[in-house]
Every structure is written in C-alpha cells, then in structure tokens.
C-alpha cells in the first residue's frame, strides 16, 4: 500500500495533465452537442489534425536538431497554428457535412459525422502515411529545465506547461461565454435554436463560431499531447475522441463546466487505475466508466445542477 501512497502525488500530476487535455477535447463535443444536439464523431480527427499541424510546425522550424527560434515562440506557434488549422477543418466539416442535414433525421446526421471521421482519418493516412511522427522536443527545452523534483515527485516542464495552457484556455473560454455578446448569443442558441433565430441571432454564424472554438480547442489538445508524449499518427484521433466524449458524458453533455470537470476526473481515474492494473487495460477502464455512467446517471455529474449549456 505504501508504494501506492508514494506514487500518489506523481499519479495526480499525471492525471491532471491528461485530464486537462481530455477536458479540452470534451469541450468541443459538449459545445456542438449543446447547440445542435448532435454527436460530432469527427471531433477526434480534428484533434489528430491539430497534432499533425503541431508536428509540421516543429519540423519546419527545426534545422539539424536545433530549433531556429526562441523555444517559447515555437511552442506558441505550434499551438496557435494547430488551433487555426483545426478550427478551419471544423468549420469546413460543419459547412459541407452537417449544415445540409440540419433538419434531417438524427441518424442521418450521425452517419454523416461517421463519414467525416473516416474521410479525415484516411485523408491523413493517404498523404501523411501510417508511420508514427516523433516530436523532437529535445532541442526545445534546455536540459536543466526539463524536469524538477519536489520531494519524490517529478515535475516535467512539459506537464506544467500543458496544465497552464489548458487552464488558461478554459478560463478564456469562460470569459467569452460569460462576458461577450457572442457568448450570450451562444447561450441563447443552446437554449432554443428557433427562439434565438426569432430574436435576431444569426444562428448559422453562431454554429460556425461554436465549431471554430470547439475544434480549435481540440487542435490545441492535439499539439499538447504531441509535446507530452512526443508522437502522433493518423489513428490517435479515434481513441482521443472516445476519451473526450467519455469526459463530456461524465460531466453531463451540454454543460461546459461539466466537460472540464469530467475531463479532469477521467484523467485522474485513468492514471490511478494504471497503478493497479496493467497499462493495456487503461482504456478498458475509461470505457467501462463511460458505460456505467450512461447506465446509472445518463445526465452526467453536472447534468442537472448547471442548466446553462452552450
């Protein structure tokens, strides 16, 4: 038992990092669900595209294993460009695959989303190949900064960076939703899309904004996971998408704060599970949580307490 207690702070840190990333992915699901009531299967692929964008930015800015700019600038560029590209892909999928089906039966929309997912995944497979891309982060962070110890717990620079960026993005999103005009329009549209139209809100534009924000956050998550685990391939979106969705459901789909909470809880649960179980079963844990939650509390942890959904 002692050995577990010793590992606990370490696992908490790991869980928090992972959880933050899941939360970012979950937000994309939950926002789209809140507005359109649809499950965007393709969200995982958008995350994957974010990962690839990050890899390409790093790759193009590296010469002879040395980054050609300030590391902070490179990391910011990676995240910002990943957000931009993912956001763009998100908008395009909405425009071409979902908007024509806005009034169609639900199963058609789901099937179209499935199609987008397959298409994007295999698009990347075709043009980027199946091989795993490795992020060469060695040159990005000076050796003496890479890890630091507090007691027996190891903090890596990357983890701290990921946690900070994640929470910064979530805080920004909260401000946008709470304080801005577009945020108000988003909340109204989530409540009742028709009534919002009658009140003069351009719903199509709001849907585009929602896809933009959700996809951009997914893209940021993709790059940050790349930086953390130093690799990305065409297939990572599938698992990540499922995890993000699990997080969204755990927190109560439709609720943004629920998604944040659900992501962090899922991350913690997974890293704590790894101390007890072989790591191959880490994903089994996540999906079992998902199935159990759906059966006993389908509205999620925060499904009722926070009626505000976007």
């Amino acid at each position, binding site marked *: 038992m002692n050995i577990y207690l010793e590992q606990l702070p370490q696992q908490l840190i790991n869980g928090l990092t992972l959880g933050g990333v899941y939360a970012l992915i979950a937000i994309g699901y939950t926002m789209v669900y809140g507005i359109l009531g649809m499950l965007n299967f393709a969200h995982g692929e958008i995350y994957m595209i974010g990962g690839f964008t990050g890899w390409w930015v790093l790759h193009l800015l590296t010469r002879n294993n040395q980054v050609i700019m300030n590391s902070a600038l490179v990391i910011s560029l990676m995240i910002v460009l990943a957000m931009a590209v993912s956001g763009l892909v998100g908008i395009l999928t909405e425009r071409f695959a979902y908007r024509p089906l806005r009034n169609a039966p639900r199963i*058609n929309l789901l099937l179209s989303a499935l199609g987008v997912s*397959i298409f994007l995944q295999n698009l990347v*497979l075709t043009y980027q190949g199946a091989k795993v891309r490795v992020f060469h982060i060695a040159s990005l962070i000076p050796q003496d900064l890479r890890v630091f110890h507090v007691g027996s717990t190891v903090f890596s620079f990357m983890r701290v960076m990921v946690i900070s960026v994640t929470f910064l993005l979530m805080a920004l999103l909260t401000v946008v939703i709470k304080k801005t005009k577009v945020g108000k329009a988003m909340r109204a549209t989530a409540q009742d899309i028709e009534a919002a139209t009658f009140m003069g809100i351009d719903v199509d534009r709001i849907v585009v904004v929602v896809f933009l924000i959700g996809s951009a956050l997914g893209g940021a998550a993709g790059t940050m996971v790349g930086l953390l685990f130093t690799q990305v391939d065409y297939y990572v979106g599938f698992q990540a998408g499922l995890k993000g969705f699990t997080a969204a459901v755990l927190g109560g789909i439709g609720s943004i704060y629920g998604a944040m909470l659900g992501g962090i809880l899922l991350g913690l649960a997974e890293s704590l599970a790894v101390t007890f179980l072989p790591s191959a*079963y880490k994903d089994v844990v996540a999906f079992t949580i998902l199935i159990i939650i*759906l059966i006993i509390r389908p509205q999620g942890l925060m499904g009722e307490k926070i009626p505000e959904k976007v």
Partner: protein
Amino acid sequence: MNYESNTAAAGEVGAVSWRSSNRLILYGVVAILLIIAPHVMPDSYWLRIYTMTGLWVMLALGLNVVAGFAGLLDLAYVAFFGVGGYIFALLSSAQFDIHLPFLLVLPLAAICTMGIGIALGSTSIRLKGDYLAIVTLAFAQIFKLLLLNLDSPIDITGGVNGIFGFDPINIFGLHIASAHAYAYLIWLAAVLVAAGSFRIKASRIGRGWEAIREDELAAEAMGVNTTWMKLMAFAGGAFVAGAAGCLFASFQDSVFPNNFDFQQLVIVYCMVILGGLGNITGVIVGAVILSILPEFLREYGAYRMMSYGLILIVLMALRPQGIMGDISFLSRKQKRPDKDETGRLRASTDLYYESRDHAAETRQTETQFFKTNRIMLELKNITQDFGGIKAVNNLSFVLHEKEVLSIIGPNGAGKTTLFNLISGIYPPTQGAIYFEGAPITGFKPHRVVRSGIARTFQNLRLFNNMSVFDNARVGRFCRTNAGPVSVLLNLPRHRREEQETDRKTREILELFGARLTGYRFDQQAMFLSYANRRRLEIARALATDARLLLLDEPSAGMNPQETIEITAFIKTLRDVFGYTILVIEHKLNVVRSISDRVIALDYGIKIAEGSYDEVAGNVQVIEAYLGRKRQ
C-alpha cells in the same frame, strides 16, 4: 430517412403482390444464378470474392435490421461479427481442444452473440440514439482490446496472432471443404437472411419498427412496446452477425483481431446506406457493388477508405434514400382514382358523392347504445407536478360505460396533461387510475392501450410516411402476438393473425367512407388533408379494439362543414358502435351536441361538473373563460 424507407416499402409491397407465377419465375432465376455462379468464376481468386460477397450481403442485411428497420445506430455490429467468429474459433479448434460439430457451434455462436447483444442493448436502449452509438462504440473498443490482450497470462484469444486451423465443417456427412462448397454454404445463409428480412418487414414486427422510426411516442401510445421492439432489432442484428462471424471464421480458417475492425464496420454501413436504409433489395445491391467494385479500382486502393467516408457524407446530404430509392418499376402500379375504366377523367366531387352514398347505405344508423351506470374509468386524487407547477391537481372523476364525457377549460387548464396521465405517457405524481376496476396507474402507454384505452393527439402524430392502411394496421399491433420465430417460419397462426389484421383494419377504415378508403388506402398519411388526418388518427385508435377512446380536440382546425360531420361521427361511435368516449373540445356547440356530461378544468382543478347547461351556466366557468366582472 423516412422518405426512402417508404419508397422502399412501396417497392416491396409491390413485389409481394405480384402474381405468384411472376414470383416463381423470380425465385427460379435467382436459384439458377446462385447454382451456376460459383462454376463460372474465372479463377479461385474471383471465387473467393464471390463467396465474400455473399458474406457481406449477409452482414449488410443483418445491419439493415438494426439500423434500417429500427433506426438504431449500432456501432458494435462488427464486434458482434467478431464474437461469433471467436466463439467458433474457441469451440471448434485445437485452442482448448474443444471440437464441437459445426451444426452445434453455428446456432450456439449466433445465440451467444445475441445474448451479448441483448445484455448490451438492454443497458443502453432506453437512452437516446446517440448514446446507444457511443455505448456500442465503446463496447467495440473493449472487445478489440480484449482480443489483443487476452493472450496472457492464459492464452485465450491468441492476441495479435489470432487463432487458426479449425475443424473442417461436416454437415451430416457432407464435407464443406472445397471453395465451391463454401460458396454454396455462405450464399445459402445470405439467401435465408434475405428471405427472413422480407418476411419480417412485411409483418407486424416490421410495421412496429417503421412506426417507431416515424414517431416513437405515437408508436408507444398506439400499443407498440418500443423498448422491447428496439431490443428485438438489436438482438436480431447480433444474431445474424454472430452467425456470419462463425461462417467467416470457418471460411478464412483463421480469426485475427483486425478482421473485426472499425474499417469493416464502416464498409458494412456504406453498403446499407448505399442501398438505402431499410430497403432490402437496395442493401443487397449495395453490398454486391461495394464488394466487387474495389477489385476493379485496386490501383486506387489508397483512396478506398477515404471514398467510403465521402460516400457516407455525400449520400446523406444528397440522397439519403440510397441508390435504389426511387426506382419506379419495382413499385406497384398506382391506381388512378380520377379516371374510370375507359381512361376518361372524372370530377373528384363525383367520386366523393358516389362513395358516400355507398357508405351511407351500408352503415347502420339506428341508436343502439346509451350511457349506463357501470363505472369504466375512475381517477382518484390524481396530481401531476412539473417541478412545482401542478398541471393537474388532486383531480377525481368517474366515467361511465358508453358515456360521452367532455373536458373543457381554457388553454393551460391541464386537459392534455390529463390525457397524457390516463394514457400512461407520464406516470402521475400522486393518485390512482382504475380502468374497469383494475388499476392502470403507472402502466407504460402500450400496456394502457392493451387494456383497452386508445387516444388521439391534439397536434396530429400520424406515421407520416406510412400508408393510410399501414397507419391503421399499427393500431392492431397490441392485438396480435406473432413473435419473430412464427413470422420467419410463416406459421399458420401468424398468417391468420395477418388476415385478421387486414380484415379488421379495412372494416374500420370503411367507417370513414371515401375519406380514407379507395385510392387513399395506399396513400402516405402526409398527403391527406388536415381533416382526413384527424379522421385517420381516430381510425388508428379504433383499430386497437379500444373500448374507451380519448379524443384530444377532434374538431380542431376543421371548417364548419367538417365539424358537423365529425360531431355526427363521434355520436355514431357511441350510439351505433358503443364506444365510451372522453373528449377534449373547445368548440362548445360540438360539446353541447355530443356530451352526456361535461367537466370544466382550470389550473388543473375541476371547477364544475354536470350536464352541458349546468356547466355552461356556472359562474366559475364563465370567469375562467372570460375573466371576472369589474366590481
């Protein structure tokens, strides 16, 4: 989706109604093709493709039951396929040295897979559609992870390497070993699944699924046990997938985890979508096309999966009914109601009066039934609390047999909520409801219908893409019992039931004269006029053999002439046919002429009860409608 399924339905009804000689010729051609085909394949490679095509057809048809008929997005379908495959692999190989005969393993695999399907489905089927998708997707992932990792500490699945080298199939001394034998075996299975699909689609089960897809709440309120029916579709899909997995494992003589990957799932979905969800012929064609086409496009293999994604997106946006959707020569020749035998156009008014006279002649008109004093429905202290707002508050009343009782009250008085409580759509927060002496409180709507209460909806909830006839036939669902086995085997009991269903439904539709019969019989409900839709709602409720009818604003939206007609009809329903009727109505002249008694509601409370004149003169009622006079 609704649209395509309907044209599909039309096509298949047409196929069934062909003269039997035509059908025999069709069967003969199909049989000859299937017998010859394996022998005309140019080489063993193409023979293999041919056999695999049969397997894909079988898989696609199974998925069509779940996704097409019942409209459930089942993403564990290929995992079920894998479960079947692995069950065969474990029970008929050297892996555990169990060597059961194929004839035992095949049903065992199918039934076990179905069991797993039921277990998974029963946990998630009451959830909304997309949750089911996610639960099944998660199950598929868990399944694959287990396949990959259960090779240690004990080797069960063989991990990445899979399991291979199975016992050869031996069916009563008939050895299935050659490629030709497999081709026959697998195509035989595919043909059986296809025949079963056709049968089930044309049965009460198929109509039940179609109704659920059209409008789940209305289906439940018309007596279809929606949870059970959805579970049945889910289990049926799993059954076919399990059997297909078993055949596949034996054919390939090995099973690997990536035989049952997400890719295969997408391919099967593409086949079903390409053919049109629910369209059996279409799905077969879709499966054949997508099995063979890639062989010609092999040099573009890298784009294969990408194009499957595109197929899904493009079809959903532009042609959700699939490629076979509108092919007209398959559908029955439409009777032209507006032309006589010589092809001369006739005025529609002629048609109307002609058939009305005919109906009037046959209809009995003398009054046979009156209000009795036996209590039929009793509500005791019913309260419905919507988070603090009491839509119905401590309401009690009785309804006598063969009585016409009207509920009146201003908007928001709780009239429709009262109907929802009686018909079981909401369980009441407090209180009890008795029907013919037995409690029905908290019954699900389909059980309420079964006990003899049927309703109509204020804002019309017909199955819009189903024909008039089929709409009414759905009403018979709760009076028929044929399960999947008797439908698939076409047992006499099922045939009798279907004949009875058709006869009763026709009788009921004929009560409405030309409004719902004649050429309107096969018309989709959405093409009916507003007043006729209201009539069809009543017909559908009558078809359930209800003794108590709950009519929610039967004359809403009707013009004065139609209102007079429907008022007379409601009177006939009681006087001539002896139905007990509880009716919500706003038009007071209708209320006056039909009701034995009237109850006025306001804010969920009964404010007056008695004869029409008593209630209409009641001060509280006048205040509820018009407000209080200024003092």
